[in-house]
């Protein structure tokens, strides 16, 4: 009887099993296999070893894409964590208006990356945007044309993404701050330690788990970077703001080179794995410490 009932549980878990094993695991293996072949529009069984990977790393566009992702990712993660922590601590320190402030800092996170890209494209365009507005105010030499400057365009994409995702970090850290023992504040006050010092030296390390969570969410979003670039710069000027996800999409659907695209996607997957593994491990470790 019990076994019969439990059988239903197995049936109910079938869609999840198919999704995890066939879709997630199966398609990844499929892409890995294609990346070793010479497939163009359709997959073939003509295997060429690591030739696609070799081609990938001699392609300037791919190398630019990787460099851009590294700059963008470092900026977005570091600035979001610092700014998010600052905002969370300040909101936490003054009890008033928490709801209103949280709404203001988090609303961009409800917007799509496409909308985010379009908004910032409009704000940053040199002929009508912020640069022109500042010049009209009398700052005739004011220059802020990064979006059309090949050396600086990736920073503008980062600015847009930081505006969009900073609130997420704030909310996660604010939730973490709520879980901290209020006695710490009493003890610090008795010892005469200034509030900012408590936040930086005592509270921040206690939030390790929340910081790890925020970093994981930011990192998974960073690797996906595609929509903002498409909406904001289309990879330009020239190929200056190309990113790996766009390179892969263009080779899958525009240039009909699925083997090269698959090789690119596998490189992306390995990168994610290498970056995530230590954070996931630390997060588990910090959870275990907290449970003790």
């Amino acid at each position: 009887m019990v076994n019969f009932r439990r059988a239903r549980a197995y049936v109910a878990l079938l869609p999840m099993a198919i999704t995890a094993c066939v879709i997630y695991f199966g398609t990844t293996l499929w892409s890995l296999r294609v990346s070793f072949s010479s497939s163009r529009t359709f997959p073939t069984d003509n295997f060429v070893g690591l030739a696609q990977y070799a081609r990938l790393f001699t392609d300037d566009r791919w190398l630019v894409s990787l460099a851009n992702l590294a700059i963008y990712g470092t900026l977005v993660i570091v600035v979001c964590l610092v700014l998010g922590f600052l905002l969370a601590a300040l909101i936490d320190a003054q009890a008033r208006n928490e709801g209103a402030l949280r709404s203001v800092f988090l609303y961009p996170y409800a917007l799509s990356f496409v909308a985010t890209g379009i908004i910032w494209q409009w704000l940053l365009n040199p002929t009508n945007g912020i640069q022109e507005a500042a010049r009209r105010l009398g700052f005739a030499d004011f220059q802020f044309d990064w979006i059309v400057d090949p050396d600086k365009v990736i920073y503008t994409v980062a600015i847009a993404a930081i505006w969009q995702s900073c609130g997420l970090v704030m909310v996660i850290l604010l939730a973490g701050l709520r879980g901290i023992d209020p006695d710490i504040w009493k003890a610090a006050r008795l010892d005469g330690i200034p509030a900012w010092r408590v936040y930086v030296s005592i509270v921040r390390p206690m939030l390790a788990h929340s910081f790890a969570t925020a970093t994981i969410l930011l990192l998974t979003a960073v690797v996906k970077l595609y929509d903002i670039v498409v909406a904001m710069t289309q990879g330009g000027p020239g190929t200056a703001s190309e990113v790996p996800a766009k390179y892969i999409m263009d080779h899958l659907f525009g240039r009909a080179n699925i083997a090269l695209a698959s090789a690119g996607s596998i490189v992306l997957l390995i990168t994610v794995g290498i970056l995530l593994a230590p954070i996931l491990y630390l997060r588990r470790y910090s959870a275990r410490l907290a449970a003790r």
Partner: protein
Amino acid sequence: MSPRRAARIGLYAFLASAALCFLLPLYVMLVTSFKSLDEIRLGNIFALPGTFTLDAWRAAWSTVCTGVSCEGIRGGFSNSLLIAIPSTVFAIAFGALNGYALAFWRARGANVLFALLMMGAFVPLQVMIYPLVRVTAMLHIFGTLSGIVLVHVIFSMPLMTLLFRNYYAALPVELFNAARVDGAGFLRTFAHVVLPMSPPIIVVAAIMQVTGVWNDYLLGLVFAGRDNLPMTVQLNNLVNTTTGTRLYNVDMAATLLTALVPLVLYFTAGRWFVRGIATGALKG
């Protein structure tokens, strides 16, 4: 003035200016969408509209060209609704069932499966997209509404399952055991005991899923097909592939229209939104 008071004022000043910076893009979008094109060309992006007009909103909704057709982005709005509603209903149904089976039934191997599913959440979409194109083409649903809904349900399964599993794991197990002693089976326990206690987490999951599906661009572009393109794809076509004069006011009105659903959801149910981020992310 005491240093304590000075610090307090400094803190308020910083928070207020940060808040202004975060609101500025929304403000610029709003004022731009109410201006005429001439005023945009001659004026300052931060200035309030001299003559207030709704023409850009009308054009964005019903006459502007998004690629080949020129019927505004209202078609995209209904497409996004048609995609978001079933994607949310099915995603929640699977999430709830998975979470229930994982939290209460402790089926052998289920936790391994769950770990595999959660690992899948970190795999970049680009790795899975082309094989999924082939799979949906094989099932004859590539480029159809069912195709895009299926893809959304697949990719939302880790988050949905996690939300429900964490919520159910916190429920008292005695309720579940009592139902079992009374002879209720898998589905009856779910329908009569677990589901009536689920509305809070269903609201959270629905808000996260509707926002996520509504804001998706990549999956809609690849899987929805030409007749079902979601609003985000049409918006991008409108802004970035139009030839001729750029209608900045129409661009901004269309962007605001596209952002309307998630923004309204967020401003009316922000508390649940925050709760979703907290329960989904922190306990994972």
